[in-house]
């Protein structure tokens, strides 16, 4: 198996998951609590990557973050290199592409927390932020963990968007799924078999973990 590609895939999935927890939690919290009419539009945008071909997302990212655009110049000024065919570019694309897989479970778990518990915390003097960390998050951790695991797995297996914005630069943008594609192209079926089996096993284990997490609501706390 292409160990360099494996390392890259794991690293990309880890960073993407971290970014999704940091960005996705506030977004999910907003979706779970807002009464704004904008909610439906935002929900639809978040869900788009589920139905959109990854190539479409990749195409728009390439166009939107092209070196001559304002966003592209900003990206280059920030990171010292242009967006296409870079690991950082891949990370941006991965975060957008896996957004629904993190935000939807986050939002479901957060909105499952009894509103009265939040109100009780407010009357006891806890600020909205303190309430989030002391009440909402501890009660929704299973959903947050499930979302993070799902986002990790989804990033591990992405192909189209990587090919569009990342290309196939070894050590920079060649992830496992790209390596698999190459192994098949080169008719190296033994290597392809190992890579595919690994991705299959990893995905299966992740889904088992997610389903187990969703079965058990605050297991450690309610059981005595």
């Amino acid at each position: 198996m292409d160990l360099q590609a494996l390392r890259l895939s794991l690293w990309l999935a880890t960073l993407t998951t971290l970014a999704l927890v940091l960005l996705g939690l506030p977004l999910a919290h907003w979706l779970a609590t807002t009464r704004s009419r904008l909610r439906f539009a935002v929900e639809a945008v978040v869900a788009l990557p589920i139905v959109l071909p990854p190539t479409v997302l990749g195409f728009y990212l390439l166009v939107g973050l092209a070196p001559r655009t304002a966003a592209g110049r900003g990206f280059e000024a920030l990171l010292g290199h242009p967006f296409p065919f870079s690991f950082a570019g891949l990370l941006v694309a991965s975060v957008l592409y896996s957004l629904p897989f993190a935000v939807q479970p986050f939002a479901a778990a957060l909105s499952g927390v009894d509103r009265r518990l939040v109100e009780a915390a407010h009357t006891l003097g806890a600020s909205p932020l303190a309430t989030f960390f002391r009440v909402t998050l501890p009660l929704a951790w299973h959903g947050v963990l499930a979302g993070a695991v799902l986002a990790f797995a989804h990033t591990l297996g992405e192909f189209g968007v990587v090919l569009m914005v990342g290309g196939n630069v070894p050590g920079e943008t060649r992830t496992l799924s790209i390596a698999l594609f190459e192994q098949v192209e080169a008719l190296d079926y033994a290597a392809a078999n190992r890579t595919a089996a690994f991705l299959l096993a990893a995905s299966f284990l992740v889904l088992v973990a997610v389903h187990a997490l969703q079965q058990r609501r605050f297991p450690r706390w309610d059981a005595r």
Partner: protein
Amino acid sequence: MGRTLSLDVERRFAAGPVVRARVELPLQGGLVTVLFGPSGSGKTTVLRLLAGLDRPDAGEIRMAGETWADAATGAFVPPQRRGVGLLFQDHALFPHLTVAGNVAFGLSATPRAERAARVREVAQRMGIAELLDRRPAALSGGQRQRAALARALAPRPRLLLLDEPLSALDAPTRERLRGELRALLESSGVPAIVVTHDRTEALALGDRMVVLAQGGVRQVGPVHEVFSAPADVEVARIVGTENVLPGRIAAREGGLATVLAGAVVLVGVDPGGLEGEAYACVRAEDVVLEDAAPHGSSAQNRLPGVVVARLEEGPLVRVAVDCGARLVALVTRRSADALALVPGRAVVARVKAPSVRIVPRAPAAGG
């Protein structure tokens, strides 16, 4: 402690009625005000406005000279800074925290050692000191209520709000806890406002009562006064036609208890386990009026008196009799005419012992 809570608010709901409430409540430590009304009258809405969980669409709320909410200026004090303890109907304890964690929740600004001492002190007072390590899921209904009360009282609130505090409990527990809750509220030293639609709960818990109906506050006064003398027909319909005589339990024997209410002696079924102050409650339709002549007045629950007022209500007549205390009877027009029930007429009011409901005001232990 003589503070006033004044409230003149309106809250509109998209598909529902408009809730209006206007009332001034003097607040004293340990004094319990009951906010009474049928469902849909806006009791819980008023409670949420007081807690700061909702904003009024019009009007204002002032607490001891401080403006909590004013729809005209947009002024609003958030729940975090009102110093109000709120007891939810189902208690809303944090399931992921122990009882100690729940009680300490509102004390995060307090230094650690002081916090632990305060948790122990409040837990002791609420009788949950041995339960501090448990999770809410491992508590009984009554224990949950005391834990929730301890949590609300720990940060020393200026006002305690209780939303239907007993309705989440099963009937036997509810019976047992009514007196207990009254004693806990009294000993807390914090003024309390209790929302309820249950008459017995209102009688057992309240000192003063605010009757809320659609459209606003209908009557404010001492609980037994509101029950005995409803301001208008609508209040009468809401609180029921009930005679409520404040008194005290004088004797208990063979499952019966004797209540002394002023000059009136009434025997009813012993509520059990409690003594001291109590209300004797008799529904107006259970009061039978008879000619004063034939029997001696010494028999049980036979109260000689004089008719003081007569009010026609369709086929029925509401007759007020002064027997040392004012007792209202609901009789048919035919018997009212047969007995010539007009003011000044001497009669005997008779009540069967099972029709006398005794609502204790305080448990035997602890006051």
